[in-house]
């Protein structure tokens, strides 16, 4: 059994095809998995590093997901909890695309309104719609503002 005391860094093996989501705020990796609907039960191959040292953020999380690329909706919601995230698309071990997330003006159909009295929380044939604010999101139907716990509103 090796005991590499000199290596304090977390080592995560390279992936062959898939997505690396880097520069996620420390502690948010599990919420990112929730956004992607990944809980491991489908046999997805993934590596998660949490609270690892980072130059840009004091502590960051990093996720490597095999055989999975993100949809625009997923990136939009990701941007709400990880505005500084970078997304690297990997094919045959090489990063073929690298981009930052953009905060959208509006997210539709991905978050559910926490206000039980909101019309979008009922049985009406409409998707939820949230305006993205500097520090949260706001339901365009009932005006409720959410700043904390946005990840828990993700419609799964």
């Amino acid at each position, binding site marked *: 059994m090796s005991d590499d005391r000199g290596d304090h860094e977390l080592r995560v093996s390279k992936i062959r095809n898939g997505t690396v989501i880097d520069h996620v705020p420390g502690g948010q990796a599990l919420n990112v998995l929730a956004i992607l609907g990944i809980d491991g039960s489908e046999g997805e191959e993934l590596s998660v590093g949490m609270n690892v040292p980072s130059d840009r953020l004091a502590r960051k999380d990093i996720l490597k997901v095999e055989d999975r690329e993100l949809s625009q909706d997923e990136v939009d919601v990701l941007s709400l909890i990880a505005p500084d995230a970078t997304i690297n698309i990997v094919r045959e071990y090489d990063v073929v695309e690298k981009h930052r997330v953009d905060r959208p003006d509006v997210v539709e159909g991905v978050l559910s309104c926490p206000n039980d009295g909101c019309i979008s929380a009922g049985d009406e044939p409409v998707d939820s719609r949230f305006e993205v604010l500097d520090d949260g999101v706001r339901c365009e139907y*009932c005006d409720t503002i959410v700043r904390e716990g946005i990840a828990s509103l993700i419609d799964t």
Partner: protein
Amino acid sequence: MRHDHVITSKHLSRGDIETVLDRAAEIAADPSAVADRHAGALLGLLFFEPSTRTKMSFETAMKRLGGDVVDMGSVESSSVKKGETLADTVRVIEGYADALVLRHPREGAATMASEFVDVPLLNAGDGAGQHPTQTLLDLYTIRENAGLDDLTIGIMGDLKYGRTVHSLAYALSNFDTRQHFVSPESLRLPREVVYDLHQQQGGRTGIREHESLEAVLSDLDVLYVTRIQRERFPDESEYRKVAGEYRIDAETLEDAADDLTVMHPLPRVDEIAPEVDDTDHAAYFEQAHNGVPVRMALLDLLLSEGGGGRDE
């Protein structure tokens, strides 16, 4: 008016408000001039919650313009009882009427309904959300009694759940006003509304929050009182204690300016003592009556336009 729906007072500009109030003043001065103006037009009334004043004043307004109403009736006797969605209900009723009035217990109901119809839709209250036609009649009453610029207003009572309060606060911020919000801690203005008043209204309006009326009463031109509801409190004694502190009577008003205007959206329970009714301060019955010319003005503007820019 640029809009063909009236959903929230947040979307009403100063120009929109003045257009409606000016038209209401013309109509109030000479109602007979518009008696046949909308003969044959039908207004659809969809009230998913009980209403006396709002519903009757819309009905009166439409009939005084020469039109008529078609009424969905109570929810118990309608297809809603069978589980029909609001989206379906409004799409059906828009085929029967030239404009719709909607009151619904859920916040955002009018916004959603307006996405499904092409006829003008007027929000007559959506849950704890907005009640913009009440706001317009409130503004009309304020303008008649105290003027809308250089106004100091106190808004007191249930500021958390009171939709008339939220609508009024947004609309007043189009004008040069100082707004004092007086309520128990547990019924303060929602943070969303405070956020908007600070952020989106560009700081034109000064807002302050208080737990007692005493500190501001003598500065006020208008005191707008709302009902504190029993069901907002865990027990009767707590309710009685709090409600008693926000009650207005002749003695309270001794410290007020002589020309203070006291308003209330009604119904009141005991937050304004009946003895106030006979003073020059009382404007709440006048306020209720103003619902007719103001709603006549709104309907006239919406029905005359035959559509226009959507309320975005």
